[in-house]
């Protein structure tokens, strides 16, 4: 029987169960001794690199590093984060309808690093009549996220290879995650 045996491996370095702990562990978001009024290092590096195109969001809420990014630079910044900073895992992309805010929409991108296991949140403001540049060129996995964001929130994406509705029928009228969408028909 010519079975190629699978090379199944397990991660090394299994930690032993500690017998006695000095006290209860703090919650994960409290674990890092980080001052919420300070810019997190991963955002600070980004500001150094791109200057005005990146605005850190302060104070840091629950230890989630967040940066506001200019729409024109987003593709360039994402490529930099992927190649230079190790944020290679496209966790999520979603849109928020903010009719009372500065912009009409906010596109929120969550990145993760498979190497150093940190998260980074980028927020891009999209005004009326503006289009969000597609990130499918950086990560293929952004394809369906962007289709969903277009479908449910109504954010237009520029340069997307297949910008169609994904969850709702093609002839659906409106975008249900907009704040003025009626709850009852």
């Amino acid at each position, binding site marked *: *029987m010519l*079975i*190629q045996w*699978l*090379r*199944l*491996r*397990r*991660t090394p370095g*299994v*930690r*032993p*169960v*500690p017998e006695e*702990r000095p006290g*209860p*562990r*703090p*919650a*994960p*978001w*409290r674990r890092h001794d980080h001052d919420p009024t300070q810019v997190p290092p991963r955002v600070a590096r980004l500001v150094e690199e791109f200057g005005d195109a990146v605005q850190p969001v302060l104070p840091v*809420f*629950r230890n*989630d590093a*967040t940066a506001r990014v200019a729409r024109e630079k987003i593709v360039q910044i994402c490529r930099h984060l992927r190649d230079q900073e190790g944020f*290679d*895992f*496209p*966790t*999520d992309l*979603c849109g*928020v309808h903010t009719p009372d805010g500065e912009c009409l929409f906010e596109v*929120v991108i*969550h990145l993760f690093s*498979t190497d150093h*296991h940190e*998260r980074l*949140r980028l927020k891009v403001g999209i005004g009326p009549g503006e289009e969000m540049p597609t990130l499918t060129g950086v*990560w*293929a*996995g952004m*394809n*369906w*996220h962007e289709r*969903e964001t277009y479908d*449910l929130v109504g954010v237009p994406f520029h340069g997307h290879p297949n910008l169609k*509705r*994904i*969850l*709702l*029928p093609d002839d659906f009228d409106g975008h*249900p*995650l907009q704040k003025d*969408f009626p*709850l009852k028909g």
Partner: protein
Amino acid sequence: MAERQTILEHGAAPDPIASETFEINMGPQHPATHGVLRLLLTLEGETVRSCEPHLGYLHRGVEKIGENKTYLQFIPYTDRLDYLAPLAANVAYALAVEKLLDIQVPERCRVIRVIASEVARISSHLLWLGTHAIDMGAVTMFFYTFRERETLYNLIEELTGARLTTSYTRVGGLTRDMSPEFVQALRAWMPHFAGELVEYGKLLTRNRIWVDRTKDVGIITKEQAIALGMSGPNLRASGLPLDLRRAVPYLDYQDYDFEVPFAEDGDVYARYMIRLEEMRQSLRILEQAVDRLKPGPIWADHPKVVPPIKDKVLTSMDELIHHFMIIAEGMNPPVGEIYQAVEMPKGELGFYIISDGGNAAYRLHIRSPSFVNLQVLETICAGQMVSDVVAIIASLDPVMGEVDR
């Protein structure tokens, strides 16, 4: 007769049938699509030339509901995301809202949540194994795994009062404490199940038909998997040992002794092996968690969020007011936004919640693992046989409840 003569005269004429492509719909009502997934396959003979998934047959607008229900009222909707592991989704949502409110639950509550998550993981993987095998024609496996699932569902019923729609967690605690009967039944079941797992391996792992159907089918490379944002066993089968229980620990998972299995082949067989090993590791976690279970409170000490004890509600005015405020009005987290992810049986389930200070989320986004994992179908199905598409879907283990949301 005339045609035959032409072929004879002109030598190898192009076969008019071979070059013809045609489109068929696989699903939405197809037993191998595990729900209401519809694939538009372009076929050339029996070879798939392209595959276009069509989603949305189970879309319920859960994210819109999340913006219009209070944080407590949304808990039952989390059952209906991944309906094969509702307990784990309950835990994920509770953790997200607790992060928003900055609440830490007590030790006993955390241990019970770990037990709930791991029971859900085993239950989900068992269903995957049974249905995957049935898709490949191995019907026997289904009966074995569903026998164990029945025991697990009885356990879940003992724990939560419901078999499927558990809604077990609350923000800052749990609906009810774990009973000694549950612990006893779980302790009795674990050694039995460890033996069952060996049997499953004996049935399939070296089975020639199984290996032929799954080996080198639907290969996903590590680079592809990362670029697509795949997570869970599908990612680990492609060579990256990324498990959020280890990478970004929550619920004190860093104190448990378990290993993260990963393989480098990235094919259907590798994904099978990974999930089989994961059940073994979940069993290890369960054994440690049960030993760790000490008497203690299961609710956090946070009167604005945690409802008062029922006895006091019926006798004391203040407690009654508090009870009504929490149930009817809900809780008001501070203004801010959080992203909290946990390792579900399918992969990374994340809740992104924006709070504007009100009693409902301003925006609640669910990053569901199956939705992201399914994207790979567009890439890897091309060039495969139709029967292999069935194997690939089954090995990705999608749940349409959380794909369509």
